[in-house]
């Protein structure tokens, strides 16, 4: 049995992106759910399964049920970091296909910017890393970047090109948090944090929430918005701690991407628009390689010359990504919402003409969990 095309996203919304002064993480989450239900034309009382994962509330699924005031048949709270939500969509598709749920809400929200100004996390340093005080999670990604540069000759400039491309997209997105011009030189001159990564290689610290409503494909057409179908999903978990990652240049995206594309019956060349979890610039290079958009080791050269920027061959992170649009601690949901908007043709100046197939990719932990979703319009069924 394949999940291809069996379920669809019928509602999507953002809430509180940027700065949401005076609001709690769960309030932002609920506001996003409220928006997604309205977008879907679905009543709260119809929701019978929910999914979330929040950084500090380990029982956030229970809090969500309580604050929504519902008694769901299924409460998914599986935690793999920022990739969790792309796993939730797969579980949602399974529940819907099996007839165990009718309407699934997947959501997230965080007030980390206005509440603390930095990443809020319940994750401590691992026992065998703590004595050396790596910055969490930054140093883990810095180690991966160093290894990629050592092994493949990836350059400082190529890392910068990822951030410059994201900013280019953000400048076309009125909802993006940072829209000032950004050049290669600006990135390379920015403050060094954990060598080789500099502050402009790092995602933003913002507030923000997002929510999706999923229903079975045969009823998805009854909703006001064009359905965005779940065509394929896959996961890969290779480690928790960076010191346990077998090869810092190969992520679980190689497994998750292949599984998702096999389920969807597509290849990288078919994808119209790509949303990658860009917590750090190196992520985009690694994921483009592992997902098959270029060969291993060639990701640095691939992102040169504006290839993933507006006007380039491959549109990547068209909202501006975690680097320039929004990054409230976990970014996975935002890859999905931007893909839904692109596939509905609702993204204004940054719209990719004729976008029918989108790839969303989530990252959790320190390159630890990788989850890929393929989404498509009715034309791709």
């Amino acid at each position: 049995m394949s999940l291809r095309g069996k379920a669809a996203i019928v509602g999507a919304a953002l809430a509180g992106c940027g700065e949401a002064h005076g609001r709690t993480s769960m309030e932002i989450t609920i506001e996003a759910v409220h928006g997604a239900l309205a977008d879907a034309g679905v009543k709260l009382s119809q929701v019978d399964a929910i999914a979330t994962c929040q950084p500090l509330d380990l029982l956030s699924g229970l809090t969500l049920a309580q604050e929504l005031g519902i008694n769901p048949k299924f409460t998914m709270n599986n935690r793999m970091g920022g990739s969790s939500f792309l796993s939730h969509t797969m579980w949602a598709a399974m529940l819907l296909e099996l007839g165990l749920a009718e309407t699934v809400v997947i959501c997230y929200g965080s007030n980390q910017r206005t509440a603390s100004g930095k990443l809020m996390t319940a994750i401590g340093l691992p026992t065998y890393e703590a004595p050396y005080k790596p910055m969490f999670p930054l140093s883990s990604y810095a180690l991966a970047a160093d290894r990629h540069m050592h092994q493949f000759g990836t350059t400082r400039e190529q890392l910068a090109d990822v951030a410059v491309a994201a900013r280019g997209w953000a400048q076309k997105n009125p909802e993006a948090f940072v829209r000032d011009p950004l050049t290669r030189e600006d990135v390379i001159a920015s403050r060094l944090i954990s060598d080789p990564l500099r502050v402009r290689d790092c995602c933003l610290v913002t507030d923000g929430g997002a929510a999706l409503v999923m229903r079975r494909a045969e009823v998805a057409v009854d909703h006001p918005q064009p359905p965005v179908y779940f065509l394929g999903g896959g996961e890969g978990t290779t480690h928790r701690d960076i010191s346990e990652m077998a090869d810092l240049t190969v992520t679980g995206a190689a497994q998750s991407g292949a599984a998702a594309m096999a389920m969807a019956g597509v290849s990288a060349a078919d994808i119209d628009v790509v949303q990658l979890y860009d917590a750090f610039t190196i992520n985009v290079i690694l994921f483009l390689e592992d997902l098959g958009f270029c060969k291993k080791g060639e990701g640095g050269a691939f992102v040169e010359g504006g290839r993933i920027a507006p006007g380039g061959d491959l549109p990547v992170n068209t909202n501006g990504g975690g680097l320039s649009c929004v990054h409230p601690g976990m970014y996975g949901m935002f890859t999905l919402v931007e893909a839904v908007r692109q596939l509905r043709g609702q993204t204004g100046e940054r719209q990719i003409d004729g976008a029918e197939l989108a790839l969303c990719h989530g990252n959790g932990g320190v390159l630890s969990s990788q989850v890929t979703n393929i989404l498509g319009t009715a034309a791709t069924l």
Partner: protein
Amino acid sequence: MTTNTFEGPGPDAQFAEILSAGDFRIQRCGDCNAHIFHPRPICPECGSGDLSWVAPSGDGTIYAKTIVHRRAEKGGDYNVVLVDLAEGVRMMSRVEGVEPADITTGMAVQASIGEGMNGEPAVVFTPTEAAK
């Protein structure tokens, strides 16, 4: 039905005790001979529970490095590295006795017992050339 009983302190506690006594040991699997770090109850290669402690050669190669930049008044910059030991296992550590700019990925290093960032016993490394 099986009740799987392991005797005494677990691998983490045993490693910590050995390290406190000034020794560095890694595990080796009695069934598949794989070396294992960090310590754990069963072999990640073959699943065997027949693990024992062995002394590694201490020879290693820097697999990846980063310099954490920190204000001088907070203690200044320090390095964090991943080292591949000759036995085929990897660990996080710090390289001592060398300027940050001179630490290179691929550099040969030698293990010793030093201190972690909070003064606790920890395995650290020095460049092999300097150690000779």
